[in-house]
């Protein structure tokens, strides 16, 4: 308790001073700069280095971009135009090559009048993914999604409608077999029927059935053969097909790796570690060079299909690891709860474990897909025309564009960036949405 105040001591103030404006270095842009850029010696150095790097890059590349030529019929014409407008010895981009050949980078040699088909297939892909990604939508839509592979096949390759229908019928056969076998009440018969019957159908009956139906009721869409595929159509086809096909395989492998049965576990681990231990390029070589050795003499089928098979096996191993992480992330209580309800292994997996584990694994699956999509550029090494090197080299083999170097790379790189950046942002959003803990 002090009894000093203005009456007794002259230097004690009784009234509040009005608020002074903050010093100039503590407000607005200057404050922001000081706090964010120049808060210390190290920070200042970093800032200056950063600015220098940006300036250097812009200085090196900007003139080249600004001198770009969009309308020309050949590289030499490009060079002429650049020399005329910017003086001798000026460098500039020749975007005319993109303007003339953009469709090849995107669609390969797909017939021009049918471009809507791959585009529609891509659009439908998002429609098919919607019920899987957004829980708000009615569950019935999953069945529509299940039809997507058949629809995509027809859109991309065309041909007889009966082929995908008879393939899809295989799943129906399996389901029927499952239902009938369940009635008999014998255990193990149901899964056996569900696996064996479709296999038998596909191996023995599907082809002839499709042929017969085709003869009876011709349903035919204009066919586009695999040699017309190239560019991003090829990349996306391989990428999406491999991921979709590898998901079930990956789930099986992940379960196999966590199985109690020694042999099943050993085989799964062996397969996963083998695939993850070799470069994709050797698997592509296997697809193009060795598959003919491993299959019965004289068999020969589409190189794209062969590549899809190998890439599927490749992706399956990575997906298996992602899903294994998801299974491991699930609290033990969930497994125990499933067991205590008296569910058998498959039931507990199907109803309790897998739905949750897969949900946890979605970001990992997306990043696996991004990696796979980038890796599809390697198919050039087996003679398929990928957008990055395959189509680029084919374009450079035309007399008028021989010698073009950077422009196709920049164009293709930009498209890859847009696709993958979108996907990675989306997977971050999912991660945030699925996050259950608060920090």
């Amino acid at each position, binding site marked *: 308790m002090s009894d000093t105040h203005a009456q007794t001591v002259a230097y004690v103030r009784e009234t509040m001073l009005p608020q002074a404006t903050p010093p100039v270095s503590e407000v607005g842009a200057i404050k*922001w700069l000081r*706090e*964010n*850029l120049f*808060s210390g010696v190290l*920070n200042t150095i*970093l*800032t200056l280095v*950063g*600015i220098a*790097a*940006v300036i250097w890059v812009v200085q090196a590349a900007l003139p080249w971009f600004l001198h770009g030529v969009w309308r020309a019929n050949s590289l030499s014409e490009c060079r002429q135009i650049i020399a005329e407008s910017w003086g001798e010895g000026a460098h500039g981009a020749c975007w005319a090559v993109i303007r003339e050949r953009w469709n090849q980078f995107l669609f390969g040699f797909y017939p021009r009048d049918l471009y809507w088909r791959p585009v529609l297939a891509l659009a439908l892909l998002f429609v098919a993914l919607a019920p899987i990604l957004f829980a708000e939508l009615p569950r019935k839509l999953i069945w529509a999604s299940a039809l997507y592979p058949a629809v995509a096949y027809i859109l991309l390759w065309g041909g007889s409608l009966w082929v995908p229908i008879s393939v899809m019928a295989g799943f129906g056969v399996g389901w029927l077999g499952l239902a009938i076998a369940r009635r008999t009440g*014998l*255990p*193990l018969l149901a899964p056996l029927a569900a696996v064996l019957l479709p296999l038998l159908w596909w191996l023995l009956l599907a082809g002839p059935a499709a042929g017969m139906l085709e003869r009876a009721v011709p349903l035919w869409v204009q066919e586009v053969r695999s040699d017309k595929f190239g560019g991003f159509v090829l990349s996306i086809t391989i990428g999406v097909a491999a991921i979709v096909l590898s998901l079930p395989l990956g789930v099986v492998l992940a379960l196999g790796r966590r199985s*109690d*049965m*020694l*042999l*099943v576990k050993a*085989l799964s681990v062996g397969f996963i*570690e*083998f695939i*993850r*231990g*070799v*470069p*994709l*390029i*050797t698997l592509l*070589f*296997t697809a193009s*060079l*060795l598959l*003919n*050795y*491993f*299959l*019965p*003499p004289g068999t020969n089928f589409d190189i794209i299909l062969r590549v899809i098979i190998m890439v599927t096996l490749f992706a399956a191993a990575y997906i298996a690891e992602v899903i294994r992480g998801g299974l491991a992330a699930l609290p033990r209580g969930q497994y125990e709860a499933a067991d205590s309800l008296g569910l058998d292994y498959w039931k507990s997996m199907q109803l309790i474990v897998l739905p949750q584990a897969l949900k946890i694994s979605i970001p990992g699956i997306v990043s696996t897909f*991004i990696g796979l999509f*980038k*890796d599809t*550029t*390697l198919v050039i*090494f087996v003679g398929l025309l990928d957008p*990055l*090197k395959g189509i680029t080299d084919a374009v450079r083999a035309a007399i008028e564009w021989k010698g073009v*170097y*950077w422009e196709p*790379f920049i164009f*293709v*790189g930009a498209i*890859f*960036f847009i*696709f*993958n*950046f979108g996907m*990675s942002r989306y997977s971050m959003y999912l991660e945030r949405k699925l996050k259950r803990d608060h*920090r």
Partner: protein
Amino acid sequence: MATVSDAPKASFRLSMLIYDTRYRSITIQVVVLLLFMAGAAWLVDNTVRNLAALGKDFSFGFLWNRAGYDINQMLVQYSNDSTHGRAMLIGLLNTLLVAFMSCVAATVLGVIIGVLRLSPNWIIGRLTTVYVEMFRNIPVLLWILVAYAVFTEVLPAPNAFRGDNPTASMILFDSVALTNRYTAIPDPMFARSLGNIDVGLFLVSLDLVAIIAVITGSVLVNRKILASATAVQNATGVRPVTWWKSILVLVAPVVLLLLALGFHAERPVLRGFNFTGGLDVSNSLMALWLGLTLYTAAFIAEIVRAGIGAVSRGQTEAAFALGLRPNRTMSLVILPQALRVIVPPLISQYLNITKNSSLAIAVGYMDLRGTLGGITLNQTGRELECVLLMMLIYLTISLLISGAMNVYNNSVKLKER
């Protein structure tokens, strides 16, 4: 009251193989094994029949035939008179070299960028984000090609160093020449060399062995000194001054040895078309190294960022409460805990580097895929043997890396009760 009676002694019936969960797993495993063996037998049988149909045999004899082609980077002796097997070894060493260099560089760069991403500096935060997104979302093949092209376009050709007023000049006291073919660096030479020993596959330089042995000895002695200093500190609370002892022990023996061997560096000199006398580090190696490093560093940066983010805020707050400065908090509290999260994905990035190094052919770096899976495969026409051998070698490398890293991983693992 129910009377308790013994459970009936179950005699084994065949149906138990299906119904009894104890035996069911055996049944399933037997079926799986049979299927697996049948599948493998089918593949092998097809291969045998196909080889017979093509009139080819399956043998690795070609590895002992003359290769007949040259390789521009060899870590051990090789000429076009050497065998295909020797060429394979050269390729393998080149793969290991670039993979090792990239792993080290990508880790350093990745950690720096990962930490910088968390920095409060606005420009740096944005720049690192741009960097990570750029490199993560574009195929590594493109980055390797871009790095190669940049080296080619930006650096001067050896010709530019010629003449009275050359347009390019060497750097670092005229000892290093950056050209668009290679970087010529001084070659360490020994006037009184101890010579080489031939250990079968390659020659080992005795000078190198001696230097490594001396350095190892110095490090061991230095650790002894430090350990005794710590013991004194624990006993008395005062740490004796050791820095000058350490420096003496670490530096003096090596310097003495180098003087004894007559060490000097031979500078590269421009003769004819190229620099001679120095060591040439080829641009295909540099481009591949740079491409792989930049690409993988983006992933490692994200791993580091996530790892640091995984350490709970409470740890930082506790460290601050103890009065630790931010830098020490990072190094003493956060990083050691983050490492546990960081190491497993880091291992797979190292594996990715090793596997991605097989893209070397795009810039003409002769790695395993360029020699064994490239020219040798082409000249001998033995796809089956070459690709299988290549797979086997890559698989071995990968398993060794993941095995070694798993050992480390177990040592830093959280020891839970």
